């Protein structure tokens, strides 16, 4: 009975007693959720357009951030470095399309998945070779990212909002909004959606698949750069950052591999669920549940909807 009380009653009592702590936890969950969503978005872009499960998205985040910081350290002004980092992501997209995707067209999904693994290894080695393996500071000041905190009195306690977190949430929201407009209003966006629907049909109306792939990898590269700046500002730029890419995977399966709104809502659910679970239920089992809770949440959702919350319905035929 005692254990049941501890699981089902005590955390809720605690939530009711200290609503300020609950709000603080929710806020932190939301911010990390938005950032997870940002990484998941990179996966979704590529998966939608080319059916490739891009494992290298995590290392692309690190690589983009490293390029930016590395160039800045070499004396390039911050905004020029930003533009150069975008160009590097464009070059990466072209090279990946030429060297990896084009020869592997029409191969089974798992082969393409493995190829992005090879890409991951290559980029780890390449990034470390050029910029060194030491953790770096993100150049928050030079990019005019706000710092400091705001403390608000509410519900009988203090709730602390990091300015950086607010900026991250705003920038990520703008980014997602821009992508949504890009997908629904522009010519290229329509072409991307056509490719996502059917490669063959898209080819037959004159859409160049190769060009589309470069564009989506470039778009994913830019998303990676933004994610890299935000995560880098929170926890430094180092290769351990690619671990967060693994955190984006439960977000993906929760939302469905093919859905942009799914990635966002999935990110928020995972971010909030993870923080609440860690804070209120974590101590029961000794803490550290953050490492696997996201996967278990996603797994439970999957048992009800095997294609994720917003994924396309899987129809099987013989």
């Amino acid at each position, binding site marked *: 009975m005692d254990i049941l009380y501890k699981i089902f009653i005590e955390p809720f009592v605690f939530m009711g007693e200290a609503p300020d702590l609950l709000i603080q936890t929710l806020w932190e969950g939301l911010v990390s959720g938005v950032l997870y969503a940002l990484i998941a978005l990179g996966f979704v872009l590529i998966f939608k357009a080319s059916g490739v499960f891009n494992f290298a998205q995590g290392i692309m985040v690190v690589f983009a951030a490293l390029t930016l910081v590395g160039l800045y350290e070499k004396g390039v002004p911050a905004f020029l470095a930003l533009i150069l980092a975008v160009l590097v992501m464009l070059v990466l997209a072209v090279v990946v399309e030429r060297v990896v995707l084009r020869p592997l067209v029409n191969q089974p*999904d798992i082969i393409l998945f493995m*190829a992005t693994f090879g890409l991951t290894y*290559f*980029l780890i080695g390449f990034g*470390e070779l050029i910029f060194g393996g030491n953790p770096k500071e993100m150049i928050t000041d030079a990019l005019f990212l706000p710092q400091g905190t705001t403390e608000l009195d509410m519900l009988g306690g203090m709730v602390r909002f990091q300015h950086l977190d607010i900026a991250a949430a705003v920038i990520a929201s703008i980014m997602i909004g821009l992508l949504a407009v890009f997908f629904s209003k522009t010519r290229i966006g329509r072409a991307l959606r056509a490719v996502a629907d059917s490669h063959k049909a898209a080819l037959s109306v004159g859409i160049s698949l190769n060009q589309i792939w470069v564009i989506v990898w470039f778009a994913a590269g830019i998303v990676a750069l933004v994610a890299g700046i935000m995560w880098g500002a929170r926890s430094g730029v180092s290769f351990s950052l690619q671990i967060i890419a693994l955190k984006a995977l439960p977000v993906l*399966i929760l939302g469905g591999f093919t859905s942009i709104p799914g990635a966002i809502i999935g990110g928020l659910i995972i971010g909030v669920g993870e923080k609440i679970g860690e804070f209120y239920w974590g101590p029961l089992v000794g803490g550290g549940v953050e490492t*696997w809770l996201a996967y278990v949440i996603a797994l439970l959702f*999957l*048992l009800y909807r095997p294609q994720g919350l917003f994924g396309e319905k899987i129809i099987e*035929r013989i």
Partner: protein
Amino acid sequence: MLYREAGQFKTNYVADSAIFPLRQDRIGLGLIIIAAYALAFLGNSFLLQAVMIPFLVFSLASIGLNILTGYTGLLSLGTGAFMGVGAYACYKLMTAFPEVNVIVWIFVSGFFSAAIGALFGLPSLRIKGFYLAVATLAAQFFLQWCFIRIPWLVNYNVSGALDAPLRTLFGTPIMGPNATPQTRYLVVLTIVILLTWLASNLVHGRIGRMWIAIRDMDLAAELMGIRPLQTKLLAFAVSSYYCGVAGALLVFLWYGGAEYDVFNINQSFFILFMVIIGGLGSLIGSFFGAALIFILPIVLGIVLPAIMSPFGISVGADVIEHLRFMIVGALIIFFLIVEPHGLARLWQIGKQKLLVWPFPY
């Protein structure tokens, strides 16, 4: 000249459905096994300890994952954790019952891993493809968390690490600090040969055909009377059994002691690499994959400085490490482009070419 099938007639069904229908193949296999045993007495201890033992251990783990991913078509990223279950189970068993021979416990520890594997395989009935891969990540992270947080698993020792106690077989130490690489190599080799033979019989028999039917199309297989749940869970259990035994061998017969970190997510990916590069759905491919992925970085570590030094480029160990990453990554992509079906396919093509040589077909 020697590799010809002329004159070898099959007069009954047993001969026709043999795994090695060619006499030359059977002789070759025998020679390889003899050579492998002879290596224990000819090779130096660096070769045995740093190359051959891990190669065999990883081959065994690859066979395990190949049963699941290659034969049954279920992608799993939890291999490292299942290996860990085997290692921890083996540790608990052999410290709790030291009087029983450790070989027994190595084989028994696989069953614990199999049970955990079957448990985490339950969602596979509803979830497929990459969704399942991510679901198995839940197993990976949850089990790794258990290894860290449950001190009972390591008998409450302070370091929180597994260490190999002294164990003997026929009076010779095979585990622990006194065991020579030679004896450990012989033990590992025998276990791997035994389990490979078993796996070969499994995948060529009724069970293997059921797995393959599920892989090719589970809906159609179900209509033909194969029960998907049992078949998939069996694949998870057998696969995890192999991984568990490999994990126990890895810790106690190779490292001689290890922490939970050995069984992290990178280990899972590492094994998956071996399976894909070696060839999905091929036992010999598992050996090829393990050889390439494990031995290649070692060779590069030796060869790269040798290539660079004549050009006057003296490079630090860290640069070599980075170059190694780049070359391994590039080679993975290269192999996938050249032969997406893995090294096993190249082997097959090579044998076919040899058979009809000097004619093209």
